[in-house]
C-alpha cells in the first residue's frame, strides 16, 4: 500500500511544496477567473447601458415628432456596435416605432425586461430604457446584445489562467526540486554517514555541518555522539589490549610456575621412589635376619626373646608395608605405574588371595566365605594388581570386623568383572564416606589408633582400579558392616 510516510524525504518535500503551490495557484486562478468573469459581465452591461442611454436620448425628438425614419437613422448608428444584434423603439402605447436592423431582427425570446436591469437569457443580454422628455414618457428602447464576444473573452481568459496555472505548477516543481535540497541533502548526508559508520565501524568519520538550523544541530549532536562512541571504543580497545597483555603475562607466569611445580612433583616422586627402595633394602635384611633369629638357626631363644623378636619383625613388616604403599602412591602419582594386560585365571587369583588373607581371619576367628560364579575363568588384565586390590579390601574388612564373617563374591557379566567384599564390621557414617578414597585419610584418630594402617590402601585401590578402566564403590552404615564393590572390564585392550 502507498503511504506518504514511506516516501523519500526528498519526494515528500516536493509533494508538500507542490501541493501548497497547486492549492494557492488554483485558488488565485479561480479567484482571478471569476473576477474576470464578473468584470467582463459588468463591462458588457455598462457598455450596453451607456449605448442604451445614448440611443434613447438621441431618439427622443424622433419619437416626439413621430419620425420613425429619424428613429431608424438613430438606431442605424448601432452598426458601430458589433455586439448589438437588435434594437427596437416602442411608442408610449407599446407599439413598435422603429426596428434595427430593418430585416432579421432577432426574436427577443424571453419576456421583455420590466425594469432597467439587464436580462440575461439564451446567450444574449436584453436591456430596456424608458425614453422620456420633461417628465413625459414618450416610449421605450430595447437593446439586444450578443454575448459571443464576452464568451470568447471568458474562454480566452480561462485558457490563459489554465496555462498560467500550468506554468506556475511547473515552476513550483522546479523550484521545489531546488529548495528541497536545502533540507533533504543534509539529512541524506547524515543518513549516509550513519549507515557508513554502522557498516564499516569507522568512528573517525564526521558529518560536515552546513547551517545552524535544527539539521545543523542534529549534525553537531551526531558528531558529538560519534566522537563519544569513538572515545569509548578506543578506551575499550585499550582496556582489551591491556587485559590481553596481562593474560599473556599471567599465562606465561603460570606456565613457568606449572613447569616448576611439575618438575618439583617429579623430583618428589623420584625422590620418594628412590627413598622407598633405599629404605626397603635395609628393612628386608632386618626382616630376613630377624626371621633367621626366630627360626633359632643361630641358637635357641627363650620365650621373652622370641616375643620381642616377633614384635621387631612385626614392626619391620608393617614398616615395609608402609613403604610399599608410599612407593605405589608415588609411582601412581608420578605416572610411572603401568598395568599390564595378559590373560590370567581370575578364579585362581581370587582363591589365592582369599587363601592369603585366611591367617588374618583365623587369628580374629572370622569366617571367610567365597562365592565365585561358575562363569568366572580366564580374563585379560593385570593379575598382580587385581590381587593387590582384593587383598587390600579383604585385609581392611578383616581389620574392621570383630565378629561374624567376611564374604567375597566374584562374577562376570556382560564383559564386566564384579568383585564384592562384604563384612559384618563396624561400618561407617555416611558423611565419612566422602573422604574414603582420598590418600592419608583415616576416619578418625581413635580408629586409626585402634586399627593401625597407612591410610593409603583405599586410595591406592581406587587408583589401580581406575588404571584398569574400572570403578570402586562403597556402601555402609554405622554398625551395619560395609560392602566394597569393584568393577572393571574383563577383556581390557592393551593401551
Amino acid at each position, binding site marked *: 500500500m502507498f503511504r506518504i510516510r514511506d516516501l523519500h524525504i526528498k519526494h515528500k518535500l516536493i509533494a508538500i511544496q507542490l501541493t501548497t503551490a497547486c492549492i494557492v495557484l488554483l485558488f488565485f486562478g479561480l479567484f482571478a477567473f471569476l473576477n474576470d468573469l464578473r468584470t467582463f459581465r459588468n463591462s458588457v452591461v455598462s457598455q450596453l447601458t451607456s449605448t442604451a442611454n445614448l440611443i434613447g436620448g*438621441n431618439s*427622443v*425628438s*424622433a*419619437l*416626439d*415628432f*413621430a*419620425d*420613425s425614419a*429619424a428613429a431608424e*437613422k*438613430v438606431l442605424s448608428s448601432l452598426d458601430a456596435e458589433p455586439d448589438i444584434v437588435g434594437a427596437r423603439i416602442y*411608442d*408610449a402605447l407599446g407599439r413598435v416605432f422603429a426596428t434595427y436592423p430593418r430585416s432579421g431582427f432577432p426574436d427577443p425570446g424571453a419576456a421583455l425586461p420590466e425594469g432597467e436591469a439587464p436580462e440575461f437569457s439564451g446567450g444574449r443580454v436584453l436591456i430596456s430604457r424608458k425614453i422620456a*422628455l*420633461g417628465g413625459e414618457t*414618450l416610449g421605450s428602447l430595447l437593446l439586444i446584445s450578443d454575448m459571443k464576444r464576452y464568451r470568447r473573452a471568458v474562454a480566452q481568459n480561462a485558457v490563459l489562467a489554465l496555462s498560467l496555472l500550468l506554468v506556475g505548477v511547473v515552476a513550483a516543481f522546479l523550484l521545489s526540486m531546488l529548495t528541497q535540497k536545502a533540507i533533504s541533502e543534509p539529512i541524506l548526508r547524515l543518513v549516509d554517514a550513519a549507515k557508513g559508520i554502522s557498516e564499516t565501524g569507522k568512528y573517525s568519520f564526521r558529518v560536515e555541518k552546513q547551517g545552524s538550523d535544527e539539521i545543523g544541530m542534529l549534525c553537531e549532536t551526531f558528531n558529538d555522539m560519534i566522537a563519544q562512541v569513538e572515545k569509548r571504543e578506543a578506551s575499550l580497545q585499550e582496556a582489551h589490549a591491556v587485559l590481553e597483555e596481562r593474560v599473556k603475562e599471567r599465562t606465561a607466569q603460570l606456565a613457568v610456575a606449572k613447569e616448576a611445580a611439575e618438575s618439583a612433583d617429579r623430583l618428589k616422586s623420584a625422590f620418594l621412589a628412590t627413598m622407598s627402595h633405599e629404605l626397603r633394602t635395609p628393612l628386608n635384611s632386618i626382616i630376613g635376619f630377624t626371621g633367621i633369629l626366630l627360626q633359632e638357626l643361630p641358637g635357641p631363644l627363650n620365650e621373652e626373646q622370641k616375643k620381642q623378636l616377633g614384635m621387631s619383625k612385626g614392626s619391620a613388616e608393617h614398616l615395609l608395608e608402609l613403604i610399599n604403599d608410599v612407593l605405589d602412591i608415588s609411582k601412581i602419582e608420578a605416572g610411572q605405574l603401568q598395568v599390564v594386560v595378559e590373560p590370567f585365571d581370575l578364579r585362581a587369583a581370587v582363591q589365592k588371595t582369599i587363601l592369603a588373607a585366611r591367617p588374618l581371619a583365623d587369628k580374629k576367628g572370622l569366617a571367610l566365605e567365597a562365592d565365585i560364579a561358575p562363569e568366572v575363568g580366564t580374563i585379560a588384565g593385570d593379575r598382580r594388581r587385581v590381587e593387590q586390590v582384593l587383598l587390600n579390601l579383604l585385609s581392611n574388612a578383616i581389620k574392621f570386623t570383630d565378629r561374624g564373617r567376611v564374604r567375597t563374591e566374584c562374577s562376570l557379566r556382560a564383559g564386566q568383572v564384579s568383585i564384592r567384599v562384604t563384612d559384618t564390621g563396624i561400618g561407617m557414617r555416611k558423611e565419612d564416606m566422602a573422604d574414603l578414597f582420598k590418600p592419608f585419610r583415616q576416619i578418625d584418630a581413635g580408629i586409626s589408633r585402634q586399627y593401625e594402617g597407612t591410610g593409603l590402601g583405599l586410595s591406592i585401590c581406587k587408583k589401580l582400579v581406575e588404571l584398569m578402566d574400572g570403578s570402586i564403590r562403597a556402601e555402609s552404615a554405622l554398625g551395619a558392616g560395609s560392602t566394597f564393590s569393584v568393577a572393571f572390564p574383563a577383556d581390557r585392550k592393551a593401551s
Partner: protein
Amino acid sequence: MLLALQSIPCGSAEEGPSLEDKVKTAFLYKFTKYIRWPEGGPADDFRIAVIGESGILGPLRELARERLADGRKIRVERLRNVDEIGPCHILFIASTERERLREILKKAEPKGVLTVGDGKGFAAEGVVVNFVIVDGRVRFEISRRAAGRSGLEISSQLLKLAILVKE
C-alpha cells in the same frame, strides 16, 4: 399628444380644423421643448402670434386652452398688420403673407422671435422654421442662420428631424 406615422390628407375642405393644421399645431407646441429663446422675451405668458390667414388658429386656440408651454399659459393672438408684431415667442406666418415676408421678418428678428412659416421656400427667405409637406407628411425646414439672427438656440435633436435650409 403623440402622432402616429400616417399620411395626412392634403387640401381638406371639411368643416372644422384639418388634420394638417392639427399636426402643425402639435409640432408648434413640441418646438417649444427643443428651442431656447434669448433673454428679454415676454415674461408673463407664452405668446404665439399668427399673421395672415391660416386654419391653424383654431387648433392653436384649443391647445392654449388645454396646455401650458414652458410652464406658462399660452396666449394666442391674431395679427393683421406688420406693425402689430410685438414681443412674442412664436410668430406663425401663414402662406398668405409671401408678399410681406421680408417686412415681417425685419420686424420680428430683433425681438428674438421664433418665426414659423407655412409657405413653400419661406425658410430660404429667412424664416427660422418652415412647414412643408413631403410625401404627404408634415415636415419642417430649419434655417440655422435665421435662428442665429434671432438669437435662438435650437436643439440638435430638433435639427436632426428637420430639413436644413441655407438662405
